[in-house]
């Protein structure tokens, strides 16, 4: 098919498959993977997929990502599947699920929200009020974050 995967299999670690095309770098941001950790990380973007047409794949060698951590990926890649690899075999496989609550990851868009006040010991907290389309609500100020806004907020994650 002209698009042969050039990234070889990993021995132990996590493969995140079926990421919406073009979102792999944001997935890494959400997971807090910068590359400086020293693990082997493979990012494959815009390859063909029977399910999605085009998709991205991320492979992280030597780390089994926890469910709580990977579920955050569902915010921008709701179809992503997680494969935990042990000794070249898929030991566990599951689809990400939008978490009920997202703490500390995203900033609130309301400048008058308590979470945006300087010098307060507080982290943001959003409740997922709708899954499709995705809608989050700030636990403090009640502001509703729609899918569109969410993309921008994810881009902002340092």
């Amino acid at each position, binding site marked *: 098919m002209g698009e042969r995967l050039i990234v070889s299999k990993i021995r132990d670690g996590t493969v995140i498959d079926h990421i919406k095309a073009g979102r792999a770098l944001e997935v890494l941001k959400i997971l807090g993977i910068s590359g400086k950790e020293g693990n082997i990380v493979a990012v494959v973007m815009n390859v063909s997929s029977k399910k999605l047409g085009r998709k991205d794949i991320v492979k992280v060698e030597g780390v089994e990502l926890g469910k709580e951590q990977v579920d955050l990926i569902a915010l921008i890649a709701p179809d992503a599947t997680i494969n935990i690899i042990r000794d070249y075999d898929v030991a566990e496989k599951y689809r990400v699920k939008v978490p009920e609550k997202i703490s500390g990851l995203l900033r609130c868009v*309301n400048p*008058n*929200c*308590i*979470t945006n*006040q*300087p*010098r*307060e*010991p*507080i982290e943001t907290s959003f409740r997922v009020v709708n899954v499709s389309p995705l809608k989050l*609500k*700030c*636990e*403090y*100020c*009640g*502001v*509703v974050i729609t899918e569109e806004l969410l993309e921008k907020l994810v881009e902002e994650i340092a």
Partner: protein
Amino acid sequence: MWRGKDVLSITEFSKQDLRVLFDEAERYLRIIEEGEITEDLKGRILATAFFEPSTRTKLSFQSAMLRLGGKVIDLPPAMASSIAKGENLADTIRMLDAYADIIVIRHKVEGAARFAAKISNSPIINGGDGTRDHPTQAMIDLFTIKRELRKIENLSVGVLGDLKYGRAARSFILGIAKYNPQLYLISPEILKVREDVIDLLEEMNIKYEEVTDLKEVLSELDVLYVTRIQRERFPDPMEYERVKGSYKIDEKTLSGAKDNLIILHPLPRVDELDFSIDKTSHARYFQQAAYGVPVRMAILKLVLSGE
């Protein structure tokens, strides 16, 4: 279930909670009217921390606590203003938590009361935060309707004014929505209720209609809840000048209203309610303000030593 509960948003109280509150408020109203003395909260201390100006809310909470035989401490306005300038709210709340049994807070920042509640062991009462919640005002509003109309279910209710930024209006809408009203949300286009309120109304299956002109719906109403439209909300002053007349209510405006229509207003009013209304049987906003004390007595009592 009231005991130890933070009072942060009207949406967190069930009809059963409110029924308990109204019964207790009735009892305190009688005690006040008959000049009796109660010491239900003797030895307890209320702290008021108002980071935004307030007359009615602060004084009525203080009066309520004193009438219950408790004591009151107040965050000095100078300190409140230095905190408003950027000092840390969390530390102030920790201090008040140590000094008092219950804390009423008002703050211009949204979510301040909820944040305070996470920090404090003493219950927090939200005396108004930003443009969102003013739960005790809504409780007073609902109590007023129940007392003045002898019922609260299935009424036709108009809410007029700044529905977008007004926290009293927002809290009232979400409060009355528990009682299956026909709601008319009356405001200029740019001050319509926000989407999150509409979402909640839809979720609760409430019949509501958004209109810009009171005349269209006046004859239907059992209750008209009036709030102020602030000039500062309008990016274009001409737009304000154009609409302000339509949201000013005088005797003439009310021709065509039901005889037993009652008008509420969280006060302070500026010129949205003409003085000529005060003497009509429609005006109930002074009773509403007076009910502030017994309702807040009931809130303090239930949170500190209720079921």
